[in-house]
């Protein structure tokens, strides 16, 4: 799910960053609007207080309110009204506080008065902090709920996607069943599903056409080969000269080799097309034993010491391929072990190892499995496909074929994982 979660994280990140910006802008705006409204409110109150004071003066009283200053002016100053901010030292709290004041000069009953009323700005610094705190909490809550909503909603939305990815990954065009994808109500996913299904359908059709072609090619080649072989066999029944015999023998060898190459290439193509999906529960021991019985005389005639350590090994495998894998590994050991050499075969539920004595390789391990690579001496008329096929068969079963050279022996090991 790695990539999917990263996509979610990306969306979440963008969402959180934009939320933070929006919240910051809103809180700043709120701060200024509130400040302005509060100031208007204070100014109104100051104006009202000044009106009250003026009214009292007009009735002949000399008012004395806290935070007011009323003085009679001698001069005939021009009437005015002025708002302003000032700082007053608060003796109780021992700190300076912001105050708003209104100073007006007006004449009442023919006399000129200067009236100043003041009111404290209600702790702006505190407001600022309060607003900041509220918005921070809001931001956090939004972030958290956003994350939770994304996480859970996305999981249920993405679930079919991941399910389908799994199905698609394990789908093979050679399997008989069509691709079965889970439906999704997300349009993008639906489009992708449709594209995948179409693509798979097309691949399958192409695959079937290719397989048909391969099989037809096989048929077309095998039959003429059968005719050539039969005719060469027929020719060799006639009394012929030694020279002609020699030519005939060469022709026959080549036909036999061609037919083996054709057969092996077809097998490789089928392996690549994963044409061997049928697997059954098999015990490898009797199969290996049967092959060894069949080849026993061959090892004997080459004076090869055959050492076996075979235990019962039950596996899910394709019967036909197992026979080929075993015979290819054994034939390889037989071919490349020098006279009087040694071959040891070990079979356990974990692995099969075929080791044979011999000089080190002139090929790299990769070249060993490459088609038609024959680097070793006395490879004779080997088709050079045996190990490529062995590797293909191991891959078809999800096994590993490994090679190492140690103790002057070549070790081929199949690990049944």
């Amino acid at each position: 799910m790695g990539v999917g979660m990263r996509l979610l994280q990306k969306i979440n990140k963008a969402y959180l960053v934009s939320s933070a910006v929006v919240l910051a802008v809103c809180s700043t705006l709120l701060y200024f609007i509130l400040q302005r409204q509060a100031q208007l409110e204070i100014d109104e109150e100051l104006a009202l207080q000044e009106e009250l004071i003026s009214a009292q003066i007009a009735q002949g009283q000399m008012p004395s309110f806290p935070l007011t200053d009323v003085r009679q002016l001698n001069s005939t100053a021009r009437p005015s009204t002025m708002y302003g901010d000032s700082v007053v030292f608060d003796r109780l709290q021992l700190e300076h506080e912001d105050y708003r004041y209104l100073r007006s000069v007006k004449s009442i009953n023919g006399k000129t008065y200067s009236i100043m009323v003041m009111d404290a700005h209600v702790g702006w610094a505190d407001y600022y902090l309060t607003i900041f705190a509220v918005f921070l909490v809001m931001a956090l809550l939004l972030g958290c709920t956003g994350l939770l909503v994304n996480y859970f909603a996305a999981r249920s939305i993405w679930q079919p996607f991941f399910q389908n990815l799994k199905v698609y990954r394990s789908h093979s065009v050679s399997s008989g069943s069509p691709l079965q994808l889970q439906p999704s109500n997300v349009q993008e996913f639906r489009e992708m599903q449709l594209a995948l299904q179409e693509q798979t359908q097309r691949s399958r059709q192409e695959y079937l056409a290719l397989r048909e072609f391969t099989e037809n090619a096989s048929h077309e080649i095998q039959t003429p080969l059968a005719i050539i072989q039969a005719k060469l066999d027929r020719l060799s029944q006639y009394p012929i000269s030694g020279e002609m015999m020699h030519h005939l023998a060469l022709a026959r060898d080549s036909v036999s080799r061609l037919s083996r190459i054709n057969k092996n290439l077809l097998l490789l193509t089928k392996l690549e097309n994963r044409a061997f999906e049928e697997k059954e529960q098999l015990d490898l021991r009797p199969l290996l034993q049967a092959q060894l019985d069949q080849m026993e005389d061959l090892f004997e005639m080459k004076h090869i010491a055959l050492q076996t350590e075979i235990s019962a090994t039950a596996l899910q495998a394709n019967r036909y391929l197992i026979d080929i894998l075993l015979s290819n590994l054994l034939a390889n050991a037989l071919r490349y072990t020098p006279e009087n050499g040694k071959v040891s075969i070990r079979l356990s539920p974990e692995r099969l190892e075929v080791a044979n004595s011999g000089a080190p390789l002139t090929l790299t391990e990769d070249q060993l499995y490459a088609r038609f690579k024959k680097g070793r001496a006395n490879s004779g008329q080997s088709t050079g496909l045996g190990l490529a096929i062995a590797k293909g068969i191991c891959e078809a079963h999800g096994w590993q074929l490994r090679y190492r050279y140690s103790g002057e022996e070549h070790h081929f090991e199949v690990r049944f994982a």
Partner: protein
Amino acid sequence: MKLLIVEDEQALREETASYLTERGYLCELAGNYAEAEDKMLLYEYDTIVLDISLPDGDGLQLLRHLKKHRPDAGVLILSAKDSLPDKLEGLNLGADDYITKPFHLEELNARINALIRRKSLSGTPEIKAGEVLIDTAAKTVHVRDEALTLTRKEYELLLYLILNQNRVVSQQAIAEHLWGNSYDMADNFNFIYLHIRNLRKKLRASTGNDHIKTMYGMGYKWESA
């Protein structure tokens, strides 16, 4: 013994018939589905050699049809496809054996022989060539009533040469017969030579004759006369 050879490729059909006729079989030929169907329902054959890829129909369908009407007919499938599902399907439908193209005529002959021996309860399992008598049921060999001890491979080699007697049998055919064709080692003829040498030694000691003739580079031939 009467055989029906169903094969669409004329050259292969005729070559096969020609060799099997030499072996003493009475061969009838069919080159397509319709012809094969007509013949196999009309006449009785000991064995039918059936190519399952025919131009005008599915050979397996033909086999199904045949088995419904003549359940005890011996059938040997010829196929260009060396694939297990085809083989299993063929055998499940009642075929007795399956051989992949290209094949050696000697191998086909040996398989037909084995099939007929398996099928006919009345027939004798013994094969005689000169003074050599092979009991294919007990897998023993006698020379003038005296038992000859052979290894399994020597026995198989002897039987193969005798079934195809008076014919040069190629080393490739022998290798495939003895070790199967999956070993990719038909070129390693030393092994055949060694078996031939041992067999010849044993036979010469008991018969005093050398029936196995070496045809340089070509193969080996059993001559009874």
